[in-house]
């Protein structure tokens, strides 16, 4: 019953080799400060290295997407359905997982990796850390069509989202509203399509979908809509690339040096 989780040791999806080569070729340890660890930075580098090898330039994007909403609205189910193609009514709160990774072959030249960040169910009282919001470029807000109070929370979640994360130019990140559990009896505003349209316009949602993680309804469609919105901002997102003095310590690959440092 339920979902079991275990750690897979051998296959890890990260682009390290190109970066490693870059670093090893560095003339001295001093250059190790320029580590292309940051996702956007390393994507850019990745593009460049491919360009050099083959002359074609496949686009490789990595986007962080937040999945937000009240307890029990089906956030984790939606992620599981979308990423892992299964549904279970009996899953437990997911332990130890920050985000699920979905790889999309968007078109012949574009590979998109989506990091879908669950609110770690536990940060459920609306107290997500900045770490959660940081550098997100899109969001789903989820409510449960069978419980009106989860819809009432939607505007709070949206306001909270907009106050905590913006695009580099200060505009809100694209957000799609998901009316989940649409295979069940609906309550409230959701029964009027035109009112929902109006609501979304007023609150600044890019779009909305009736979804069902259980029946696999509209989840791929909603994701596609959100990704197209994000792609429109792509230039904006990538323009905020960082200089070499800024880096992540994750996967730090130390250049060995034994001599006196001074």
């Amino acid at each position, binding site marked *: 019953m339920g*979902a079991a989780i275990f750690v897979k040791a051998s296959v890890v999806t990260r682009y390290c080799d190109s970066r490693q080569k870059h670093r090893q070729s560095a003339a001295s340890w001093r250059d190790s400060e320029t580590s292309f660890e940051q996702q956007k930075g390393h994507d850019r580098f990745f593009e460049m290295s491919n360009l050099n090898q083959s002359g074609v330039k496949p686009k490789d994007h990595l986007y962080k997407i937040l999945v937000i909403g009240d307890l029990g609205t089906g956030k984790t189910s939606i992620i599981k359905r979308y990423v892992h193609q299964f549904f279970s009514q009996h899953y437990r709160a997911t332990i*130890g997982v920050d985000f699920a990774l979905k790889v999309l072959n968007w078109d012949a030249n574009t590979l998109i990796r989506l990091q879908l960040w669950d609110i770690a169910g536990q940060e459920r009282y609306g107290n997500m850390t900045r770490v959660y919001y940081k550098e997100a470029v899109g969001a789903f807000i989820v409510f449960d069509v069978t419980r009106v109070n989860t819809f009432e929370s939607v505007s709070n979640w949206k306001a909270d989202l907009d106050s905590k994360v913006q695009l580099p130019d200060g505009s809100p990140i694209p957000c799609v509203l998901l009316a989940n559990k649409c295979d069940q009896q609906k309550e409230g505003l959701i029964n009027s399509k035109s009112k929902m349209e109006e609501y979304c316009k007023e609150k600044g949602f890019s779009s909305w979908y009736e979804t069902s993680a259980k029946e696999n309804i509209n989840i791929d469609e909603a994701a596609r809509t959100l990704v197209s919105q994000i792609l429109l901002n792509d230039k904006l997102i990538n323009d905020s690339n960082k200089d070499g003095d800024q880096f992540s*310590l994750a996967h730090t690959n130390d250049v060995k040096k034994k001599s006196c440092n001074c």
Partner: protein
Amino acid sequence: MEYDLPSDFDIIVVGTGMVESIVSAAASRIGKRVLHIDSNSYYGGLWASFNLDSISKIPEGNRSQPVVENKENEIVYPVGNDVFDLRIHSQKWHIPESNPEKDVDESDSAVAQEEHEWTQEKLLKISRKFNIDLAPKLHFAKGDFVELLISSNIARYSEFRSVSRILTWLNGSLEIVPCSRSDVFSSNRVSVIEKRMLMKLLTSCVDGDENEFKGYEGKTFQSYLKDRKLTENLIHYVLYAIAMCTDDTLCLEGVEKTKRFLGSLGRFGKTPFLYSMYGSGEITQAFCRLSAVFGGIYALNQSLNGFIYDNDNTFKGIICGKQRINATHLVMSLEKLPKEIVDFSTTEYISRAIFITDKSILEDEREHLTLLLFPPVDRKAACVVLELGSLTGTCPKGLHIVHVFTKQTVNPEDDLKHCVEKLFCKREGESNSSPSILWSFYFSAPNTFSQKLECEKLLNTYVCPGPDLDLDYDPAIERAKEIFERIYSNAEFLPRAPDPEEIIIEGEDNNNIINETEERAEVPADQGDVSSELAHEDDT
């Protein structure tokens, strides 16, 4: 979004400061059921970062103080004391509130264009671009904190910037401290002979055997440096900047401090130090996020109405709102300790000042992240000055945030005055080459590092100190680890958390695993194995 909290936990952590957050993450990581709550509506407590608008509203602490209640078989202690609060000395603007409509006068317009005229209104409008630390920290590139972030894989939650220069105040002006090998050789402030002396000294500090320091056990580091025939300038660089010592620091301590500095050189950037992007307050949240991801439950803005103990003074639970929540252990920040229990004998305080300024203390072509180690003068203790530019994500472009702090002797303003006067324009409106202070905030906070971990009167209760004077988080990590090990004596402290990519979620039918593997196989072939990379992290 109102829910009742679950009512039974292994451990309740009260306060989201650094030490509490590390304990919370470590407990959650080994599968303990953790409730992590804070009465504040923000993360970080005395270790938090604020935007410009909210820092003007931080409470000094005005909590209600109900009395101890004795119930049948149980005692309920009230939460919080005022002993460990911040003491706000002053918070002032030094610029006009808004810009009155200017007469469009041809002769004035050139002047107006030249000067970027900041007003309170303008700054408050971009309030959210500020992340102002109550307790700014730097990280030694090879220090305990950086190693812990990497070994626990919490590093994935944060980004850093390297400190790009270290300055000192020498002979009446700011000087760049030559700290790396190439700095030493390219410096035109140091003669060729001095270069050799300095290199030799630093090498013997790092590699020197015991004989090198024989006879200096009771003597000062300064006397050692003098005996090595270093010039006055070199002694200054080594003693006050590299080793961050005073004239009285003992030789062996000075050598240890020199090693700490030199050992972190060369890993990232030009100096041994890193600063957390978007402010030091980010760091506590990285630990909180890990705790949450491993099942920790978070609730901020909670009204804590009491700690429940039985008649043997063993911890039973807390009262949160009207709800009773039980747990085996309680870990809390010092300022949450019941007033009746506080046993605070030390009276050491930290004097702090924060400024928003209009340009760097030492202008250069590029923006710097600057650490200035202001030496002790005329019985004034050494001051640490940290200047942050917009690239750190803590202030808007064109401005700097400057943190100045030292051990308190009188009050923040008097303790820091000699240093502040040398760096900034003396009077408002005066224009010379020094930066002007647009906004200033002086406050002090108790240095609680020497406070005991365990509450003698209350069992299963551990207290976490607030920010200390160390540049890095080393003492905080040490404390958190001690608390964790006392509670869970045989458990591993923050083992590496797997990356999301390393976790497979297995559905009810096994086909999912196959799908999963196939999907991964499609990903281009030039991937490295992160786990092996990390495993070899510490080969040096």
